[in-house]
């Protein structure tokens, strides 16, 4: 699904990534760990085509980004959902409107836009807060709105850049459980983090771990068996959070399978 082969990227002569090679299969969940400034965000930005690699090969869903025309970038991004530490929501608009932004670009009828947006909010347990202004939501709720926006287009890949950075431990756990739920429904997930709580959760959930230090990929773990306890904790998260959310977002099979 995501293949990096000897990728280099520099900014103003300073290398941010040094010959990174990483392969993420469809349906994988990968933790990208490392200290601040290690190159985690740069790697994510390369994957959703916000930057171009200076050297090396990078392909997403079988499509080489090095040879990608500028006019094709939007169509690549529609297959990738992105969640940021600072949520990147429009605070003066409602949760529904914020999620709808990702669907309006598809030129669908207004009714379908609203329906899909509501479904996505239901999947993250916020259907009841659809009309609330995002600025009035808690940090945890805002991040879940951001997740809803990221998955409303049913992307094959979900990228998260320090998603728990602005959340307390309890909300962080809820968010991680949501992401795990999304992963178990078939989405390929890549989470960049230096938060130990996220690392612990991910390891316990059987996610892979890739460690970046000073732009170099030092090691990549193989996936471990998923403990049954974690399945009990995270199963049906969306249903638990919103008992009446019968309209669950369909996570389509990853592209290439």
């Amino acid at each position, binding site marked *: 699904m995501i293949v990096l082969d000897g990728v280099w990227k520099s900014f103003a002569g300073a290398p941010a990534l040094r010959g990174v090679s990483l392969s993420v299969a469809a349906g994988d969940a990968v933790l990208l760990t490392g200290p601040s400034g290690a190159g985690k965000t740069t790697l994510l930005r390369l994957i959703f085509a916000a930057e171009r690699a200076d050297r090396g090969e990078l392909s997403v869903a079988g499509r080489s980004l090095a040879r990608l025309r500028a006019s094709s970038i*939007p169509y690549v991004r529609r297959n990738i959902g992105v969640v940021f530490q600072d949520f990147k*929501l429009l605070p003066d608009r409602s949760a529904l409107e914020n999620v709808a932004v990702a669907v309006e670009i598809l030129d669908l009828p207004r009714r379908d836009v609203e329906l899909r947006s509501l479904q996505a909010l239901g999947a993250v347990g916020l259907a009841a807060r659809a009309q609330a202004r995002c600025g009035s939501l808690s940090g945890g709720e805002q991040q879940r709105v951001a997740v809803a926006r990221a998955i409303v287009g049913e992307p094959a890949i979900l990228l998260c850049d320090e998603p728990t950075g602005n959340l307390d431990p309890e909300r962080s756990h809820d968010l991680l459980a949501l992401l795990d739920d999304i992963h178990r429904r078939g989405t390929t997930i890549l989470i960049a983090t230096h938060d130990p709580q996220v690392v612990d959760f991910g390891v316990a959930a059987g996610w892979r771990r890739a460690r970046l230090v000073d732009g170099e990929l030092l090691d990549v773990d193989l996936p471990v068996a998923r403990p049954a306890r974690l399945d009990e904790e995270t199963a049906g998260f969306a249903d638990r959070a919103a008992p009446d959310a019968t309209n669950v977002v369909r996570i389509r099979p990853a592209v290439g399978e």
Partner: protein
Amino acid sequence: MRRNPMIQLIAVGTIALSLLLVGTVELAASNVARLASGWGGDVQMTVYLEDGIAPARAQQIAAALGKLPGVERVASVDSREAYQRLRRSLGARAALLDGVEDSFLPASIEVALKPGVADVIRAHPAFERLRHTAGVEDVDLMGDWSARLRAMETLLRQAGLAVGLLVLCACLYIVGSTIRLGVFARRDEIEILKLVGATNGFVKGPFLVEGALQGALGTALAGGLLYGLFRLAQPRVESALGSLLAASPLTFFQPRELVLAVAAGALLGLAGSALALGRYVKV
């Protein structure tokens, strides 16, 4: 446009005032052109005949004039026709001629000269000989007035062109600046749109429409203001120029011309917006 109504109002108002200047010059030029045409601008010389001249002699003079090199055409105008023309030119004041004999005006021969001849004929000996020909009362070179009006029209159009170019640049700048402000105000939203996969066209579309609307509304407002000024000025100008305008009263632009102007304004706004977006919005 809903988000920054004050900025939009200022932009539209500034465009309107700029175009008002261009419109005023163009309106003046078109009325001067019409006035020049209405005075029979192509008739450069009028030969007035003596009272009581025999019709045969009048025809002889007209025929001789028609054969002269430099003369394009001649037309005889008898007393009665001259009277009727005067009545028509007086318009609403034609009643002044009530009770006046329709033969009080002299017969005349109107002569249209070939291009360039009117400028030199005054100094030509033939012109003086014509004045002293039997049966001829006077010779008047009417082309002077028409030439002056044409010169004024040319000057106005040149001034209009120069002002128009300046106004064009100003309007492009105004629209571009307003659009850039709008892009800056919506930079967060634009960033999110790019992240979720919006195309350049999707992001730029609303701004292009905004620019076109600014141009169209500004032009329409300019047209409205100009019409208001025209209605205010028309009675004063016509009163000052009197019978000079009787045959060619002042007129405003035709509806078709106004529609074309608004369409051109919309294109101007669209161009200004596209120029501003080209540099500032890229996926």
